């Protein structure tokens, strides 16, 4: 799957012995999620659109995989198919070797938008999963307290979601997904709506949770720093149709700290992804990257210059 050696940015493929050994350990673990030749087509008024084509990858137990790509590359479609919320057109999604059919408790999901139930308190939100699987209220209550403790929100157990900040709400959403003890946690740009500072805290917090639990994470993002900081491997998608461009083994050693953002391996990995998802534009192809497209009409006093 790896792309041919790129001479200008060689170091992202060079792994220290510890990192190489770490990847070996990951690949020795069992496969939790396997996606084989997955494709998705749907009908639009303009005809048939191919959102995903021939997606192939495996996620191993306790691995942290990020999916990154420009907007419209189908990364949200991919995670919705994995969660069972959308149907795929071709190929297989196997969880522990068994095909996925509709949503299920074995795949927890954290959404970008606020998906907490506004009419339930924080604790009742977390109790929702256990109650749905037939646990008594008492058991559900105990489990919820335990998981709220883990995300550090015990004090807010009886608050309503609208009383919490954005970061806290996402922590509740994580606890609510984890209480079901899913095989894999699917996260769809979970920190996308947070401010930079909260987002950094949440990334750190998520790594903490991941380290201390037997949980596998598939994480969608459009933020390069976030992907390199969090992931073992990064799945880079390209748009129209969504295809796997490269699966990058992140050579940044663990444990990760924000100090590594400036390390050469981090920068090299980021540069490689940057090059993949924002390739040099051929003339007139990408309108977004071409702000000089037309003359700008001036709506203010001609003599009133800001620059």
């Amino acid at each position, binding site marked *: 799957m790896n792309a041919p050696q790129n001479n200008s940015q060689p170091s992202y493929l060079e792994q220290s012995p510890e990192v190489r050994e770490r990847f070996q350990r990951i690949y020795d673990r069992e496969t939790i999620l396997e996606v084989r030749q997955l494709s998705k087509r749907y009908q639009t008024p303009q005809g048939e659109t191919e959102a995903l084509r021939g997606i192939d990858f495996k996620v191993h137990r306790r691995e942290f995989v990020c999916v990154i790509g420009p907007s419209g590359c189908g990364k949200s479609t991919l995670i919705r198919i994995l*969660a069972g919320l959308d149907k795929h057109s071709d190929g297989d999604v196997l969880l522990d070797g068994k095909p996925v059919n509709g949503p299920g408790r074995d795949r*927890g999901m954290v959404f970008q*938008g606020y*998906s907490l139930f506004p009419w339930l308190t924080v604790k009742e939100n977390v109790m929702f999963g256990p109650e749905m699987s037939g646990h008594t209220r008492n058991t559900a209550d105990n489990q919820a307290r335990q998981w709220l403790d883990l995300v550090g929100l015990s004090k807010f157990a009886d608050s309503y979601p609208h009383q919490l900040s954005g970061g806290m709400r996402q922590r509740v959403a994580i606890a609510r997904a984890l209480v079901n003890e899913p095989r894999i946690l*699917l996260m769809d740009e979970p920190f996308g709506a947070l401010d930079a500072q909260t987002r950094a805290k949440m990334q750190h917090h998520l790594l903490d949770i991941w380290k201390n639990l037997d949980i596998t994470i598939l994480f969608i993002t459009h933020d390069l720093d976030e992907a390199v900081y969090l992931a073992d491997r990064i799945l880079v998608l390209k748009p129209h149709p969504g295809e796997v461009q490269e699966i990058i083994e992140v050579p940044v050693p663990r444990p990760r700290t924000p100090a590594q953002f400036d390390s050469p391996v981090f920068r090299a990995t980021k540069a490689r992804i940057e090059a993949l998802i924002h390739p040099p534009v051929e003339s007139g192809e990408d309108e977004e990257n071409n702000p000089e497209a037309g003359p700008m009409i001036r709506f203010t006093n001609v003599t009133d210059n800001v620059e």
Partner: protein
Amino acid sequence: MSALTLWLNAPQRRRALLTVGSFLLPILVWCLVSYLPFVWHPQVLIDEPGGVDYFQTGMRVDRSDFADQLADMAQQGLPLPSGSPANPIYLPAPHEVAKAFYSGFTSPPEQKNAPWLHESLWHSIQIIFWGFVISSIVGVPLGILAGSYASLGRLSEPFIEFFRYLPAPAFGALAVAVLGIYDGPKIAIIVIGTFFQQVLIIANTTRKLEATLIEAARTLGSRGWRLIARVVVPGILPNLYQDQRILLGWAWTYLIVAELIGTSSGITWYITQQARYQHFDNVYAAIIIIGIIGFGSDLLLARLGRKLFPWNTGREKG
């Protein structure tokens, strides 16, 4: 700035003041028309018939007729009639209506065995209540299901859409034939007037529920009946409550027509009876009571709604 202007400019007081003003303004117009003779007063209330044969004390005649007769009597040298400017009988003054309002509850009805005003009202409220409850028992669940399951929605909604254009009073004669002449057909008219709107409105409210909430619930292992009971219903409840409030208001507008069907009853019977005897002060009092009950219960329900759904703050203004 004076203390008074400061006091008046506090935003909450301003709001309360404007609310009171919105009621006081129409009352003020009514007072002007009633108490200032030069504003309208197209008739003359006769005090003294004078020499005019057909004038009687307490009779109202047009101003021009009175002027003609006055000139006529003056010419013939007969005693002059006298009177004061007055509004037509169908426009009583505010204080007369206020008095009727009070006496409607305190003095017994003129005819024996006729119901008191409050008995008529209570009968009307029961008609509304049962009509609305029966409609809701079927309409609310059907609306929620039609909104939740696209195929059920497509199966039921086109016909309901057609049916809601049929005016409910058109079914009056049919309702009497089927349900007799007493309360049955009246309740049926309220049900017909409410039910079809109710299904469509509630189905629409259900469809507007945040899709992410449903999806989150599904990934947490919720499906089918439990998904509806544990997520859809609580999720739409604040909006459903608002819908029901609006629908209850519509049910009130069907009341008068419904009560005219079969044997006239309730507040409608009271109003038509009083109008027949030209007790228009009582008619206005009864109409105003309907308004007070409708508006008052809506205010009460709005306040209750804020208590019932504490999580709904900021998303909705009751």
